[in-house]
């Protein structure tokens, strides 16, 4: 079967630093992949490349069988037009570490805005959809609250509902529980676990919290310096890592 997400020989640099180094990666349709590793190891960059927030210097990135970036020696092999980006972004949704909710919109407006303005749904239709989704994440009573009035955990749940409203095939979670107080992690994790039941939804999750990885992952990938050092099911990579670097990282994480 064709992979949902595919990186082939991808290189990404920030100035002199190589963040992804001739990187290969695949995720199957519906697979839930958790990416762990020290900060700066390239895992967030992988998500940001998929969301078109970063370009790559070399290699090919495919989503759902279509090339997102196809670059050889710094030159676009397939030219990247606004129309193409628009087409590809429709397949992907993203949830951010710092929520990035729109502060001037209520929770309902945050979720309803893009379906209305991007997908062209009517206001009533978009708001009905938003209400359903907000109820699903347990915020049926916060529809008209502004983000500043919501706790971190509630804001992040709105952000998940907002991304899901666009019906993406791939959902990217970029350290979505890292900015939360410890007692709020559970409610967000619960929502993500509920999402993971959807068989066709591919989820790529970057996290520092091994609890998140254990709860959600079909596969855990340990990153270091732009390459995947070790990967496998969570019980293997987290509980019984083979590679010394993975062992070292996990020891350090457990201490904190």
């Amino acid at each position, binding site marked *: 079967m064709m992979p949902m997400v595919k990186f082939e020989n991808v290189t990404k640099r920030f100035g002199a630093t190589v963040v992804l180094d001739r990187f290969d990666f695949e995720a199957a349709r519906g697979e839930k992949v958790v990416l762990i590793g020290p900060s700066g190891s390239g895992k967030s960059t992988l998500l940001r490349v998929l969301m078109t927030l970063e370009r790559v210097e070399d290699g090919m990135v495919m989503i759902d069988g279509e090339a997102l970036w196809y670059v050889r020696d710094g030159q676009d092999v397939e030219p990247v037009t606004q129309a193409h980006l628009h087409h590809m972004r429709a397949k*992907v949704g*993203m949830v951010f570490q710092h929520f990035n909710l729109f502060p001037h919109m209520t929770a309902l407006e945050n979720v309803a805005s893009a379906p209305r303005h*991007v997908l062209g749904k009517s206001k009533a239709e978009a708001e009905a959809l938003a209400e359903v989704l907000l109820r699903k994440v347990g915020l049926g009573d916060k529809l008209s609250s502004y983000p*500043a009035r919501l706790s971190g955990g509630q804001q992040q749940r709105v952000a998940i509902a907002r991304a899901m409203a666009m019906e993406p095939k791939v959902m990217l979670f970029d350290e979505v529980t890292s900015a939360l107080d410890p007692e709020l992690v559970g409610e967000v994790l619960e929502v993500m676990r509920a999402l993971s039941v959807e068989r066709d939804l591919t989820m790529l999750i970057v996290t520092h919290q091994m609890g998140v990885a254990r709860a959600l992952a079909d596969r855990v990938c340990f990153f270091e310096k732009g390459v995947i050092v070790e990967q496998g099911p969570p019980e293997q990579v987290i509980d019984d890592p083979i590679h010394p670097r993975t062992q070292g990282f996990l020891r350090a994480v457990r201490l904190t």
Partner: protein
Amino acid sequence: MHIVWEYRQLLVEGVRITLLITALSAVLAIFMAFASGLARDARSPLLRVPAIIYIELFRGTSLLAQMFWLFFVLPSFGVNMPALACGVLAIGLCNGAYGSEIVRGALRAVPRGQREAAIALNYSRAQTFRIILLPQAARIMAPLFGSLVIEILKGSSLVSLITLADLTFQAKNIILVHLNTTTVLSVVLVIYFLIALFISGGARRIERALSRGVDGAGR
């Protein structure tokens, strides 16, 4: 004080002209502030370069010099504009160049995550500007544009030097006839101050209306 009462009609007429020039100049300035502020950060140099030239030219030369240039020099190139047009054009263009910084600064003050979220939700660039960036930037702009309009009000007094009968012009006329200059000029200063208070009050109300939700007060 009776002098002021005696000449109230002149003063009222002067206030009318002052308000007219301030309002017209403010509209022009805010339009130019947006046009040049957005063009200044555009990708195409065809937009960027003219914006830079406009901004540097009008910020670098003095407002009175610009007004005199339009009023005295332009006719010799065959362009004859009424004094009112010269005044409004000079004040509007000059303050529009200053206002471009307000627009740019406010847009830059919107956190980067907002743009990223808009990309993730597949908004077009125009939609991102209209739905996400502008409403948040407008809140930051409101008080700064309020200050700009007060600068415009103050600048409007210069039109008295190109024959327009604004408040300052009338004040000068009255004191040429009467010697009680202290009273007349004090009253005129207070009138300007009251207009300025009115402007900043308006700007604050607009700011409050735009701040709904943003500051957590849920107003």
